[in-house]
Structure formats: structure tokens, C-alpha cells
């Protein structure tokens, strides 16, 4: 009783020292303002960099924009030695490869999300989830290299002849190439790249669907699939769209893997099996060896187009996510 516990003395001392000597008060005022300002500065810096990126890219593209204007979007001739640049083939290549990736990738990825979130037992989920994320971690250059050596020849030798034999009456499945490079191969490589992105986002979406809703549907006699179709998918629709747009943004902007397997052409064909190019891949392929100022400017023009498309798909994704329900995808 007589001796105060030492811990208490210490805390009293601390409390007393916290009773703010003027020097400490001053330090706290500066410290508070200082840390706040530094944090704000970091955020502002990020904003400035983003604006600067847009400004520099558009300024670099200015000679090409003022020279070709919008006809850049509609002509497909790309001949650096002749100073002729038209991006129509590249834009088509970008859209087609990304469309292949999304049309194949999104359903598969969403199925994976369903499996991981709703069907798999916890043990299986804890093994497969990291593996799917690992697929996202494979660098695009390695995926592209694998595409050149292993996957491209398989596509050219097996897949394309097969599709041509059975679906050749549709013009997009034209005569197969002898080399593996082409729009189709690039689209399939992009599919591999977007699947883990969409899958992990949609897995998180499905996990956030309230258990009671699902149990309610199950109690009414629904099968598991009917619970998914009737409850889970409708409540997460906006989130799935956002996830798909996220994957689309990634596919549109991927330069390296595509440039390795797309074949480096600059015109568009009806057949998917022909070589082509995309806005991003042409930059990676031709930038290091650009031959004239106009060539650089045209590549910058491609970058500017890519920037606009990329930011638009990103903003659209956040807007959809925000407008139609929270990140959890649960509509109220």
C-alpha cells in the first residue's frame, strides 16, 4: 500500500511530460503541419506526374496530329521510309486482340472466381488462389517468349488448321499461317494475361455477397447453380463489368508480349490468323530504331491514342463500380 507501483509512476511522469512544455507544443504544431504537408505533397506529386504524362505525350505527338489529323485513324499505310503513317490497322489490331482476350478470358475468369469463392472447399481454395495470382506474376516478356517458342507453333500447327477446317467458311478463320505469329496468337496470349486479373477481382466480389441471400435462395429449394445464377451473379453484375474493364485496360496496353507474337505488321486483315500489330506493340518494336522525327511523332500519336483509350476504360471501370454499387458489388 505504501509504495506506488513503479509502472504507475512512469505513466504519471509520461502524463506530466505530455502536459506540453512550450517547446514540445511548438514541435507538435510544426510536426503536425509538416507531416500533413509532406503527405499532401506526395499525393499532389502523383497528380502532377499524371498530368505531365498526358502533356508530354500529346506534345510529342503534336507534329503527327497536326500533319495527319484524324485521317491517321482511317488510313492504314505505315511506311516509315516514305514518311507515310496511318494507324487504322494498328487500332484494329488493338481492338481485335483485346476483344479475343475479353471474349474468351472474361467467362473463364468469372467461372474461376465462382469456383474459388463459392464452390471450392477452403483447402482447395487456399492452394488454387495463390496459383492463379502466380499466373499474373509471370512477366509479360517471358509469356511472350514462351508464345514465340512453344505456344505460337502449336497455334499455327494444330489450332489454326483445326479452326480453319471446321469454321473456315467464316472469313475470320482464314488459311493458317506457317509461322506462329499473328493476331490470333496475340489474342490468346492476352487471354492468359487477363484471366488472373479478372479472376481475382471477381473472386473477391463473390466472397462479399451476403451469406443470408444465398441461404435464402437455397432454402427455397434452389440448386447451387440456381443460387449463383439467381442471386450471386445479379448482385455482382456491376463489379464483374468493372473487373472486365480492368482486364480490358490491361489487354489494350500490353506492349511486350504482343509485340513478340503478333508478327509486326501494320495493316489489318479479315482473317485472324494473319500477322498484325497493335498501338502498344508498334511502339515497343519501332521506337528503338525510329528513323525520322515524323516517325517518332507518329509513334507518340499511337501512345496518345493508347493513353486516351486506357484512361477512358479505367475511368469507366471506376464509374461503373461506384455508380452501380460498392466495391463489394452488393446492391442495396
Amino acid at each position, binding site marked *: 500500500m505504501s509504495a506506488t507501483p513503479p509502472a504507475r509512476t512512469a505513466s504519471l511522469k509520461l502524463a506530466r511530460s505530455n502536459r506540453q512544455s512550450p517547446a514540445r507544443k511548438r514541435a507538435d504544431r510544426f510536426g503536425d503541419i509538416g507531416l500533413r504537408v509532406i503527405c499532401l505533397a506526395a499525393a499532389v506529386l*502523383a497528380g502532377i506526374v499524371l498530368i505531365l504524362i498526358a502533356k508530354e505525350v500529346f506534345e510529342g505527338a503534336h507534329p503527327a496530329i497536326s500533319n495527319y489529323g484524324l485521317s491517321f485513324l482511317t488510313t492504314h499505310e505505315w511506311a516509315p521510309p516514305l514518311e507515310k503513317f496511318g494507324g487504322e490497322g494498328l487500332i484494329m489490331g488493338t481492338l481485335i486482340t483485346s476483344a479475343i482476350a475479353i471474349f474468351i478470358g472474361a467467362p473463364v475468369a468469372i467461372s474461376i472466381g465462382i469456383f474459388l469463392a463459392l464452390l471450392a472447399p477452403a483447402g482447395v481454395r487456399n492452394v488454387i488462389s495463390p496459383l492463379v495470382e502466380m499466373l499474373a*506474376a*509471370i512477366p509479360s*516478356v*517471358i509469356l511472350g517468349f514462351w508464345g514465340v517458342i512453344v505456344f505460337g507453333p502449336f497455334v499455327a500447327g494444330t489450332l489454326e488448321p483445326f479452326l480453319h477446317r471446321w469454321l473456315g467458311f467464316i472469313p475470320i478463320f482464314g488459311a493458317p499461317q506457317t509461322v506462329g505469329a499473328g493476331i490470333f496468337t496475340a489474342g490468346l496470349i492476352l487471354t492468359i494475361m487477363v484471366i488472373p486479373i479478372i479472376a481475382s477481382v471477381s473472386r473477391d466480389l463473390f466472397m462479399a455477397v451476403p451469406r443470408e441471400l444465398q441461404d435464402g435462395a437455397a432454402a427455397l429449394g434452389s440448386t447451387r*447453380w440456381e443460387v449463383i445464377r439467381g442471386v450471386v451473379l445479379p448482385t455482382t453484375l456491376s463489379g464483374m463489368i468493372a473487373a472486365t474493364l480492368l482486364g480490358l485496360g490491361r489487354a489494350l496496353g500490353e506492349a511486350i508480349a504482343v509485340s513478340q507474337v503478333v508478327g509486326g505488321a501494320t495493316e489489318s486483315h479479315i482473317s485472324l490468323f494473319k500477322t498484325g500489330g497493335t498501338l502498344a506493340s508498334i511502339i515497343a518494336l519501332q521506337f528503338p530504331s525510329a528513323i525520322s522525327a515524323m516517325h517518332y511523332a507518329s509513334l507518340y500519336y499511337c*501512345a496518345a491514342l493508347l*493513353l486516351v483509350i486506357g484512361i477512358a476504360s479505367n475511368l469507366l471501370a471506376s464509374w461503373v463500380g461506384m455508380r452501380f454499387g460498392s466495391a463489394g458489388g452488393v446492391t442495396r
Partner: protein
Amino acid sequence: MIGRRRPAPEEFDPTQPLVATGNLARRHLANRLAQGLAIAAAIAAVAVLVIVVWAVVSHGIKAISWDFITKGEPDGIGPNLVGTGVIVGIGTLIAMPIGVLIALFLSEYAGRRGARVVQLLMDVMNGLPSIIIAVFVYILIVEPTKQQSGLAAGIALAIIEVPLIARGTQEVLNLVPSAQREAADALGVARWRSVLTIILPAATGGIVTATLLSVARAAGETAPVILLSSLARGDTFQLNPLKELPNVPVRIFQLSEEANPEGFTKAWGLSLVLIAVILVLGLGSRALLNRSKRKLAR
């Protein structure tokens, strides 16, 4: 009993086994089909991973030797490894403080609207194609100085890494119990002191995790180094970041563009080293994250 395919509902037969018929059978079939497809999709994704990793390992292992890792061209890839290390190091040194500060701003200082704006900024930055960031840094640094450099590549990687680090850090900052913040406030501790001495230390594990993950991502980024540091030959070890540095992704890219079987073997070897580093970083950071999350949840 025999020969009667479907018993009429009013004739209840207790010996009949309970099997779904008619509509219910159809619904069960659809259910099984859908589940089967979902499982197949998951198996397909894992199969692709296994096929790719297997291709890299089985081809790459032939190239790996002590000389391959430590010597310069034409025998090995030592300078490329060092160069990638320097470039990624520069990028991470720049990106980590900025990313952490942005995360602090988001979780401690920004109001609702401010947080939303900065969050959107980070999302856009994260979604920016890396080739555009590369073009930007090229215009900003390489074009005026007429000199590729590891520093320029590092800056481009920093722009890629900042949103990753910011998001990872912010996730952990949100896990720090608000009771700790309130306790500090109640003791009259100034905000900046509680941020620096209580909140940040609690989030250290998450910050390290986010940084490791961003390093793993940056190490394999190819677009920036192709534009900003691709002219180095890689025969000698170079450390000067003001000049172009040889590095791993560019070499893989160059070798994959040449039709040279020996080069392909070397590219497989490079890929194996790169993938091994990335997977180790990824697994390590995952373990770390789980540990620090458990700690915070306690």
C-alpha cells in the same frame, strides 16, 4: 413395376428409390454442368501456369551454371542481373517513400472527397500501360540528354510501383485498430507523433510486403527498359546509373526476336532466373503479409 417408366404422382410407391425426375433432373443436370465448367476453368488456369513454368524450368535448367550467373556476355548474364538490380533498386527507393506517404494521406489526412480523388488518381496510374510511362520518361529525360540511362528506367519503374505500394500500405493501415489511434489521442499525443510511432510501426509488415510485391512486378517490366536502357552490351559489369545498364528483361526480349537456338537457350535461362526471383519474392511477401495481418488482428 417393371416397364413403368414414370409413376404417376398419385400412385406413391415407397419402394421406388428417391431420384430426381423430370424438371428436377434437368435442374440437377444444369447444376452439375455449371459446377463442372467452373472447375474446368480453374483447372485450365492452373494447367496454363504449370505448362509455362514447366517450359521455363525444363529449358532453362540446361543453361544454368555458375558461370552463367556470374560471368558477362557471351558466357553468362551476370551484368544483366546486376543491372536489373540497380534499376529496380532505384525505382523502389524513389517509389517506397512516396507510396507510403500517399497511403498515409489517404488513411489519416484526406477528407472523403480528397480521398476519393487521390484513390481515383492511383487507380488511373495503376491502369496506365507501362509503355506509355516509358514513352513519357523517354521524352522527359532521354530525348533532351541523348543518353539512355538506368536512372531513367528506374524513374519509370518508380511510376509503376507507386500505386502498388500505396494500395498495399493503405490496406494494412486500415487494419490498424482505431482503438490505438484513439488511445494515443486520449493521452494527448500529437497526431504526427502517433502516426510515426504507433500507426506506421504497426503497419511495417504490410509496407514491406507491398514493396516486395512491387519489386517483383518491376523486375519483370520490359517496356520501360526497352526504351530507356536497352543499348548496353552486357559484357562487363556496370553500376553507373547515369549510363544505360544491361538488364534481364531487355535481353530476353532481344534474344526472343533473334532466330538463334543458342540465344533461345540463354533466354530460357534468363527467364528461369527471373521467374525464380519473382516467385520467391511473391511467396515470401505472402507469408509476411499473413503474419503481420495475424499480428494486427490480435
